[in-house]
């Protein structure tokens, strides 16, 4: 037993925290690098959602909003049915780093997954954060 419960990843971005914050917490930002469409009610307890053209969508709930340092949300776990109450928690921490930002993402809650779904979701999110943060950097650099 003893699945790792968390994924942590840090990237250095060449843009100030206020710009990174906007990319993470606005519908426009999220739709540009993460989903294909997004909406967000940016307050603790607020609902957010991202959608893709293939019909997949993920429901999120905003948990922490401490501009421009901490943004946290919970979201549905893909391999579980839509009405399953289990969620993982994602927290972004933004620290000024020279003229740029050191961005850390921590996702926790994988240990609550059933064994058959665990490997696919944990490996998927480990690869997923690597590619998503790359897309975030690409989006910020392109503007």
């Amino acid at each position, binding site marked *: 037993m003893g699945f790792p419960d968390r994924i942590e990843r840090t990237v250095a971005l060449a843009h100030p925290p206020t710009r990174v914050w906007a990319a993470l917490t606005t519908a426009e930002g999220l739709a540009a690098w993460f989903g*294909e469409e997004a909406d967000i009610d940016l307050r603790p307890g607020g609902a957010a959602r991202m959608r*893709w*053209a*293939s*019909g*997949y969508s*993920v429901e999120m709930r905003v948990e922490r909003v401490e501009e421009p340092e901490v943004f946290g949300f919970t979201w549905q776990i*893909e*391999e579980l049915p839509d009405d399953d109450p289990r969620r993982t928690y994602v927290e972004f921490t933004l620290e000024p780093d020279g003229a740029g930002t050191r961005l850390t993402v921590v996702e926790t809650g994988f240990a609550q997954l059933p064994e058959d779904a665990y*490997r*696919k*979701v944990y*490996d*998927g*999110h480990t*690869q*997923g954060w690597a*590619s998503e943060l790359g897309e975030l950097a690409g989006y910020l650099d392109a503007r």
Partner: protein
Amino acid sequence: MPDDIEAIAEQVFTALADPSRRAILAALASGGPATATDLAARLPITRQAIAKHLGLLTEAGLVTAEPGERRRIRYRLRSAPMKVAQQFLAALARDWDSPLDALKEHLDRGA
């Protein structure tokens, strides 16, 4: 969707460089059109990652979405760009040495 041959080949090779996208394309090639949900059930890739990859593959013109209601949308492989990429590989794989050796042998014999 790109229209010049270089750009098409580049899109194909970029798509094939990622193991998850190779798996998605291979599943569509062998099993025919499928929805994102079908692919997630068949492959060790999460639904969210499949949704992202299908978006990228559609933009690159390597798959097309058949019209349909969300979640029922089936994706189909487009073979045309693969054929363009195949021409690049065929040019590289062509074995120039044996015909040249044969020519040399032929000329040597005549001398």
